[in-house]
């Protein structure tokens, strides 16, 4: 059941959770003693993006041009009741999913790529650059840049670059330039290649390369996740969900999403934070990247080269090289400061799921609902299935964010079980 699909569902404003947090967010800190990495952001980010990063404004008006672009790439996305899944699990409650896979690039990433590329274009910069893990963010960046006539340079984590050649084709179709990271395009990439020629790459290395590339070429860096501004832009997901639930007279008892850097999760759940505590919120990570259970809540680097400021977050350490898991988008060592604070204060709970649970959940979801979800999103689905099994006789309404589709990740099902 597609509950609502009209323009009025898209919110007029982005929502920023910072003024509604239960405690002050620790400010970013310089990573080096002699220079200000915070001031450096002036050279890396479009001015408007930087302003939104540090704003305490609860609502920021979505520019008309961005609104138009949101409609063009398929917003609002559907909120669908997963009746077949409910039946299969024998659940007495209801399960809904918000489907970000229905956007043009196939994931939520386009929600923040569009405004960032738009502001970059308005400021007349030469081009944009970024890192990408599984390729979803790179695809969104390439398309958004192309829509605004900007070239894009994308650093794709080497292991994903090798495992997902079709992603490169997609980014090239969107006019993006893609290299495997670490690359020879930057000093930092060359250094890593010399010291660790066999490294699979990490998002931290990719960020470092993109930031260096932006500084050297008068490009602007596109923020995939972690930083507040990307979560703010993603709030279209949660605000649409709220409105869609309202239209069908439902109340969300439980919200579940997956966490890489926290952008789809924050965007999906934070708009519910001001409503009080009666919605349970669960953030799911990969078992292999257990940032909330094994990471420390501390100041840490966002990028491994330490060009960007440090932020206080749950982190496994910027040097953490995660196993080369099937869900590239979840390999990041930390999580957004606002999300980390809400987890630390107990407002948001965390969960971890294993690769086996995720594959099983993706299969179940495919053969009940027909949706082939991204491996990252599979974590949210697996977590929801766990939740349902643990509360099988309760009549709760669970809403899961399915952050993307998995058509370019099918190789994880290579061998039939």
């Amino acid at each position, binding site marked *: 059941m597609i509950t609502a699909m009209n323009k009025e569902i898209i919110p007029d404003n982005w929502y920023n959770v910072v003024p509604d947090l239960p405690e002050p967010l620790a400010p*970013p800190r310089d990573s080096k003693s002699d220079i*200000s990495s915070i001031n450096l952001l002036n050279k890396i980010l479009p001015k408007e993006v930087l302003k939104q990063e540090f704003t305490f404004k609860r609502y920021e008006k979505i520019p008309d041009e961005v609104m138009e672009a949101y409609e063009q790439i398929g917003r609002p996305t559907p909120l669908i009741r997963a009746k077949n899944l409910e039946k299969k699990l024998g659940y007495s409650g209801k399960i809904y999913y918000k489907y970000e896979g229905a956007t043009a690039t196939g994931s939520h990433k386009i929600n923040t790529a569009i405004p960032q590329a738009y502001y970059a274009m308005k400021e007349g910069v030469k081009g944009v650059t970024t890192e990408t893990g599984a390729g979803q963010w790179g695809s969104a960046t390439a398309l958004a840049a192309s829509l605004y006539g900007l070239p894009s340079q994308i650093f794709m984590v080497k292991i994903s670059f090798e495992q997902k050649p079709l992603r490169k084709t997609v980014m090239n179709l969107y006019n993006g330039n893609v290299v495997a990271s670490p690359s020879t395009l930057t000093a930092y990439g060359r250094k890593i290649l010399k010291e660790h020629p066999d490294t699979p790459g990490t998002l931290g290395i990719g960020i470092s390369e993109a930031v260096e590339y932006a500084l050297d070429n008068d490009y602007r860096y596109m923020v995939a996740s972690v930083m507040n501004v990307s979560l703010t832009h993603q709030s279209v997901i949660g605000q649409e969900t709220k409105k869609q639930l309202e239209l069908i007279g439902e109340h969300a008892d439980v919200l579940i999403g997956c966490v890489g850097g926290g952008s789809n999760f924050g965007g999906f759940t934070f708009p519910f934070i001001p409503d009080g505590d009666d919605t349970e919120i669960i953030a799911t990570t990969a078992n292999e990247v257990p940032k909330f259970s094994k990471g420390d809540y501390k100041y840490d680097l966002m990028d491994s080269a330490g060009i960007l400021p440090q932020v206080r977050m749950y982190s496994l350490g910027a040097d953490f090289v995660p196993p080369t898991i099937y869900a590239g988008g979840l390999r990041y060592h930390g999580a957004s400061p606002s999300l980390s604070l809400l987890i630390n204060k107990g407002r948001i709970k965390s969960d971890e799921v294993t690769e086996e649970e995720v594959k099983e959940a993706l299969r179940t979801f495919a053969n009940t609902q027909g949706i082939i979800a991204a491996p990252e999103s599979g974590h949210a689905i697996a977590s929801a299935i766990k939740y349902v099994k643990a509360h099988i006789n309760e009549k709760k309404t669970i809403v899961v964010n399915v952050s993307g589709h998995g058509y370019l990740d099918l190789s994880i099902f290579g061998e039939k079980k």
Partner: protein
Amino acid sequence: MKNLIPYFTLGYPDNETLSHFLDLIPVDKINYIEFGFPSNDPRYDGPVIRKTHNVGNINFSDDFYKKYFDYFHKNHVKMYSLSYYSDIKARFDDFIDYLQKRNFSGIIIPDLIIDYYSEGKEIINKLNDRGFEYIPFFSPSTPDSIIKNVSSMTKSWIYYGLQPSTGIDIPYELDYTTERINELLPGREITYGFGIKTDDDIRNLMKNGGSGVAIGTYLIKMTEAGDENGFIDYINKMRGVLDE
């Protein structure tokens, strides 16, 4: 009189130079002064002021500055200490005793509600009981509810840092900033700090109901450069702008 609050880190660039600049201050042009007690970890300061703490830590001596504390006190300039809780928590009561003995009026603690939120209430109550002003320090990332709660526990003026840390320059909407804080704290004295340099900065803040400004990085750079005339002119000029 609107507040003009010069900020200095004690012991920077060195004791002699700083004392020389303190002598130059026209005391009738300022009503408050803020002294940074050198911190081992000035975590929420930008590079310029961070450096002043590192140097100040080596140079600071109470013997040296005692006469200046007396001097400002006699001239009716209220003194406020800027101290990080991480530095003073182990000897908190002794440190407040010391500040009171030196005739300080109050204290600004930038890391208290960020890093020690759970202890904040008790510390503020303790300072209230001792009749020592706790100056709430807020920044753009302080949530609305915290601004209201912490302010309601105190009666003094508020220190609002316009930037996420000292000496940095992130674009922001000035009108929106002042509107928000005025709405959250109607009628309260708000003094703005961080990144204020020009007379236009000050004019805009005052036009929007500000009760004063604190100036740090900019003055510190003048003491570093030994720019005595620039220093006096600047203070006189800013006083003029505040009095407009």
